[in-house]
């Protein structure tokens, strides 16, 4: 991929990941990303038989399940004792439209 298209990719990624990219750093970032992806492409050299199942976790034990019993809740106040993010127990958020 060319440098220009990497810049485009980064723009799209920054929209998806909601991270503003400092324009001054965009250049070195696209260089780094390109090199890292190049390193990733090494796995394409490896032929993998069709029937190989992906492995997403190495946990093979019995998965905990919970009984439908109430445990103690914590109010949001415990997270924000000063209440600087709250209004009448609601969390203040920027506008959504």
């Amino acid at each position: 991929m060319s440098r220009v298209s990497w810049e485009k990719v980064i723009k799209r990624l920054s929209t998806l990941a909601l991270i503003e990219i400092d324009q001054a750093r965009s250049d070195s970032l696209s260089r780094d990303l390109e090199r890292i992806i190049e390193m990733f492409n090494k796995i394409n050299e490896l032929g993998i038989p069709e029937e190989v199942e992906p492995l997403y976790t190495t946990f093979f034990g019995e998965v905990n399940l919970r009984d439908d019993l109430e445990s103690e809740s914590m109010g949001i106040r415990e997270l924000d004792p000063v209440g600087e993010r709250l209004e009448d127990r609601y969390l203040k958020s920027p506008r959504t439209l």
Partner: protein
Amino acid sequence: MNNDVMIGLEVHAQITYLRTKLFCGCSSNYRENPPNTNVCPVCLGLPGSLPVLNKAALEKAIALSLALNCKISDKLLFVRKHYFYPDLPKNYQISQYDRYGLTPIAVNGEVTIEVDNKVKTIRIRRINIEEDTGRIVYPERSVLGSKYALIDYNRAGVALLEIVTEPDFRSPREARVFLDKLGSILEHLEITDTSLEGALRADANVSVNGGSRIEIKNIGSPKDLEKALNYEIARQLNIIKSGGTIERETRHWIKEKGITVASRVKELEGEYRYFPDPDLPPIPISKGLIELISKSLPELPDSRARRIAKEYGVSDYVASVLVLHKKLCDHFEHSSKVCGNPKLISSLLVNDLLRWVDEAGIPLAVGINRLNTDRLCKLVHYFSNGLISIKLLKDYVRQVVLEDINPEELVSRGLTTIGEEEEIEKVVDDVFKENPKAVSDAIKDPKAINFLVGQVMRKTKGRADPKLVNEIIRRRLAEYGLK
């Protein structure tokens, strides 16, 4: 309705019969709590917290999958669905997915519905288990008027079942009938109390004449679903008629105004970056567990309707209406057993109770509470003893439902059928005195008698038996004629 309408539904049903949320022990009964009180590190998505699945949620999901005749997966796989939004604590939702070799809990089901005496099969594409989001409110009660939003995470993490159908509906009516039936199934399985605000929500996909698919979000009831679809189809047909084309988009149903409006197009919508949630490894779903749940499955609406028609001698139609509302049907069966006369009771419930709660916008549960078994028995008793006429009975039901009045109270107000002939005779005499011309008319022409009957009924405020009134007037007229 246009033949080329295609509608598919995505229904979200909260598992309101669970005590706790899907992945933590916080109460799922958020409706009664002050904002942000039933929250914990897990449902707030605090750093380091981890989800642990509520076993009962899995069991309920299996029950629904069986009831909708689905193929159930042999393992439960959760994925993370990523999108940023302030009501989503982790900025991803734990859900399920059907690509990349992953699978939701159940696929390929079917449900039959009956519309205009025709039976139709609706295919169920899949059922997902997932978590609900928090709620956003606006301090100034409007989105645009508010400088900021307020969030309540009490609802965040409540267990949801998502039921996705194939686009098998050809009319808004069909979609509504399906949602009604699904609601009843959810009630019978003790999964969702559909009367709770926001417990049963639907998104609808609709396309007209093979055009682009429009998604309508935010529909809160079967009734609204039909309204929203009717509105949307008319809107699309209008555009097509005037030479326009339908662009694929997402619209919101605005219940208060009865219209759909376009949502602001979100950039890169649909890029959810699904992948298996590493915090929730696959959970095997054994055949044994499925069998166990299958065996303990309660009676479902279809078979219940058949049984009720047979057992109580009510019509298939009445039975089918009764089972649409589990609480109503329970009420019917209980009251019929206690007070007898199931036909009359079913009629009062289906024709009168449902009508009045609907017209007045009273929740059905409240209506049932007002017209409880005790009161229903008394009313039936008054009627069969001849204390009140069928007309009065229906009028009593209206008052009981709308005003929460005891039947005894109505009786003590003297609102009973006048059984004593003497009393009616007195009123007839009064009417005769007040209307000499009508009397002479009636003597000449028997058809004119109806006016006099009407006058007597008015004076008795409908309490007199019209048949008896007719009889007495004829007798009196005969006497007058002789004079």
